[in-house]
């Protein structure tokens, strides 16, 4: 085939320019270290690559959230540990106080110790985090949750809101516990009712009072106050509710379960004729109420009259204190569990991150060995085309005629 001069030059220049464009392109890859610079480089893998980048960004987000949630829950755990210590001290003081040889001054000293523990616990309830937010106020973090009224009782001013943070695609972890749940809603050691003893000569106490049939209970007349009275003569037990007698007079045998209106009651001790008490509904008791009861009991000093009732009160308060300690422990366990979940999520995310990064690298990263050898190759091709051109372009018949 005949080759014209113009064709020869055009072809040579085209080849040289395409080779140098090649070299340029390879240099761009080498300097960036990436095989995929724009979507054009590998359109099919590009969207997979974007998916990996999204995954990695999400994992970063989750890790950050995990760190934040951890710091919240750590603070709570520390606070609960302190609360546990304080409650333990109160319990010790309470146990000491039951020693019959305590004098009035001793009991007053104990009572003021318990009072200072109370103040410490109140202070713990009003803990603020590093931003100045009250951690036990629920959503109302600018309001102090616990305030003591002049009569000594403590009211809760926050709400029941629990905030969460997203730590994995479908997992939200709570970051706070409400003061309501921690301090105000300790389960009543007796059950669903508290007892108020009008006449107690025998030391009889309500051991448990539970609602076992809510249906019947909900339809019984209000208010749900039940008076237990032991007949002055026959010692028969009669229980009267708001709508009349619910448990007709019958002899009481020790250990017997008294059932009425869907409620089951057991008593401890042997009642004497004339004893009576009233039980009223109270499913939960606040810790502060319990401690106030303990202080009030101690401040009564040594009691000489009605010692059975005094002892019954003591037992009730001590049981409730135990219940409170269990409650705080459970709350501490709650925080601990959350921290565990956060820890395992963090590990999971780190593992996933590693795998996704590896996959991303497979698509995106340049294989340097291959890239460098390709670069060398294209460099050599360029050099070869340049040399070939210089050698051949001087060949013309006009040199010889």
């Amino acid at each position, binding site marked *: 085939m*005949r080759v014209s001069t113009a064709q020869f030059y055009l072809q040579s220049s085209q080849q040289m320019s395409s080779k140098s464009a090649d070299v340029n392109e390879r240099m761009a890859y080498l300097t960036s270290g990436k095989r995929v610079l724009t*979507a054009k480089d590998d359109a099919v893998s590009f969207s997979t690559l*974007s998916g990996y980048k999204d995954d990695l960004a999400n994992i970063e987000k989750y890790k950050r959230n995990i760190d934040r949630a951890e710091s919240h829950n750590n603070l709570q755990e520390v606070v609960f540990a302190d609360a546990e210590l304080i409650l333990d001290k109160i319990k010790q003081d309470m146990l000491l106080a039951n020693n019959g040889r305590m004098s009035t001054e001793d009991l007053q000293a104990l009572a003021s110790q318990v009072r200072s523990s109370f103040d410490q616990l109140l202070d713990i309830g009003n803990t603020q985090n590093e931003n100045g937010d009250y951690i036990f106020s629920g959503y109302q973090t600018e309001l102090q949750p616990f305030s003591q009224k002049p009569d000594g009782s403590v009211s809760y001013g926050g709400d029941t809101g629990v905030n969460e*943070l997203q730590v994995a695609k479908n997992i939200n972890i709570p970051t706070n516990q409400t003061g309501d749940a921690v301090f105000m809603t300790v389960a009543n050691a007796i059950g669903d009712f508290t007892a108020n003893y009008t006449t107690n000569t025998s030391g009889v106490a309500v051991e448990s009072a539970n609602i076992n049939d809510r249906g019947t209970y909900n339809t019984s007349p209000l208010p749900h106050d039940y008076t237990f009275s032991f007949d002055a003569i026959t010692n028969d037990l009669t229980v009267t509710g708001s709508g009349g007698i619910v448990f007709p007079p019958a002899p009481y045998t020790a250990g017997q379960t008294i059932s009425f209106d869907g409620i089951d009651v057991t008593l401890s001790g042997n009642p004497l004729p004339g004893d009576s008490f009233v039980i009223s509904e109270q499913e939960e008791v606040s810790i502060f109420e319990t401690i106030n009861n303990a202080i009030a009991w101690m401040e009564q000093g040594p009691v000489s009259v009605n010692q059975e009732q005094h002892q019954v009160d003591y037992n009730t308060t001590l049981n409730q204190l135990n219940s409170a300690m269990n409650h705080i422990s459970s709350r501490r366990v709650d925080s601990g569990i959350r921290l565990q979940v956060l820890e395992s999520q963090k590990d999971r995310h780190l593992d996933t991150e590693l795998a996704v990064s590896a996959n991303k690298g497979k698509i995106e990263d340049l294989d340097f060995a291959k890239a460098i050898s390709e670069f060398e190759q294209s460099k050599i091709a360029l050099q070869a085309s340049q040399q070939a051109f210089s050698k051949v372009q001087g060949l013309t018949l006009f040199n010889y005629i």
Partner: protein
Amino acid sequence: MTVSLYQTGVSGLLAAQQQLATTGHNIANVNTDGYTRQRAEQNASPGLNNGNKYTGSGTYIQDITRLYDQFSHKEQLQSQSNLGNADSLQARLSQLDQIMSTSGNAVVGSLDNFYQAVNGVADNPNDSGLRSIVLNQATILSNDFNELTENFDKMTNAVNGEIEQVAAQISDISRELAKINETIMHSNGSLQTGQPNDLLDKRDQLISQLSEFTRVSTVEDSNGVLTVMIGQGTTLVAGITPLTLQVNSGDPDTNKTELRLVSGSSNVAINGESLGGSLAASFEFRDQHLNQARNEIDRLAMAISSTLNDSQASGLDLNGVQGANIFTDINTTQLQQGRVLTASSNTGGLQPQVNITDVSILPTDKFEVRFDGVNYQMSNLSKPSAAVVTLGIPGTGPFDSGLGFEFVEAGLAPALGDTFTLVPTKNSAALMKSMLTDGSAIAASTAVGVTPSPNNISDGKIEILNVTDPEAARIYTNTTNTGLTVDVYESTAFPGTFDYRVFDSANPPPAPPIVTGNYNAGGSAIVDLPPSPAISAFQIEIKGDLVGSGTNAREEFTIGDAFGSGNSGNALIMAKTQEIGVTNGGQETFSRSLAVSTSVVGSKASNAELSADTAQALFTQAYNRNQATSGVNLDEEAANLLKYQQAYQAASQIISTANTLFDTILSAVR
């Protein structure tokens, strides 16, 4: 005899001279573009009959022809058009790919930073510093979208500019061709014979230039006049009459410029995309690829704006007020009006608008609504095969198109034949702005919350959905009622069905409840509160097997006010929108949507590159084939020089021999 020898010699001399001249012309034009090498056709002169034999009388040059293979020339023209098309498309798509990849990365980064900031607020809702960071990031995000749109605008302007330039060049070429045609015609018509080679070369060169811009085909008539047609057969040069190309701004979209073929005082519209060559590539790029990318970016901006605005609207800000729009509302009047382009040929006074109702099913297509005298008919311009939708009679609007947008009438009545072009996604990215300036306006708090009773024994829960008016929800829950109670139990009459009641906590049954109802096991019940006929402020979903312990011991839930400065529930919901699918029927997250758009452009660019390489190879082949016949080879011409030089020398030797013979005869008779 001697005389004829002289003549023979002279004829050989003259022939050699012409051949030398031609060779010299070839050598001089070795680097001329489009030059076809010429050759002097030498013929022997017919013999003179003297007696019974013919004596040859020398030679003459019949014609100087150019070595032109019209078939390989046509092939070169064709492959040049394809190359022009492929090169132009590749260059533009590469540029678009660059823009999408780099700006796309910026947008993904900004989006991530924005959500990072939102997560910060979810952790610490009443920190004003974190809240302002959210607003900063929102501004950066909307700026990124604005910039991307500006880049698209610049590209559109560049392409339009190129179209104008090319049209002007084509018009110039057309005029030149007509002039050359005229000259050739005159030269053929007169008694001059021979081909005007250089004129023909010039004409071919012009046609070759033209073929880069469009597809060209030619028809030659008996006078050598060439009629030139571009594209699918539109005549550009009709013999000696040139037609020119003009660029008009589009109607109704002024940026969508159109080509018109101008002849004298009349002009005709030409479809730019069917022309082939780099012109078609420009139109194809501008009207299809760039348009598609722009619409997808617009739709993404719209999806982000509307999702985040909706999230804001379902929560309460630090002041207990319903969250205001964080980005521009997607249905502002300006945006609604901007989505409709009115044809200038419309005679009616209708100025319609497009209202977006559901971003998740919104397509990126272009629609046309035409008033046929009775109904509005909507057709899909991007998918011509889709069925035409009848929207309805004027005056009964707004008309739901079923594709996530409504056609809203405004202004006066339409006239028969009025057409409107709808681009539902138009301008969303350009007009996206961050609207809030004060960090406390971020609605981090939820309005109402559900608290289950601790006495509940079954599995199941109540969730708050669809808070459309958080302030009203709070008022309804806390002020109109003193908290709402919902109780559920399994029906004793119909086991497997769960009955529920919603009532004011201060007004329990037997007072009449607010709402009652039931749902089947495995299902759920969604309740509007306040119930109809009042406007629903929020909904609750009751689900699960809330068996309860009996008619009088139902599972109970309280719904109460949840607003607080430490409430970050809504910020959590807002942060989760990063991972929920919104576009494409709710399947793609924002960054996925962007990645899909970018990789579509990338694959187009990559294909265009392959096409360009192939086209280049084909063109080189065709060029080579053409050059094999028509190109000048200097070595060959050098050899020819020697050849004709020798012939000249030999011919002059003839003359000198004839002279010697004459001298000999003369000296013999003296």
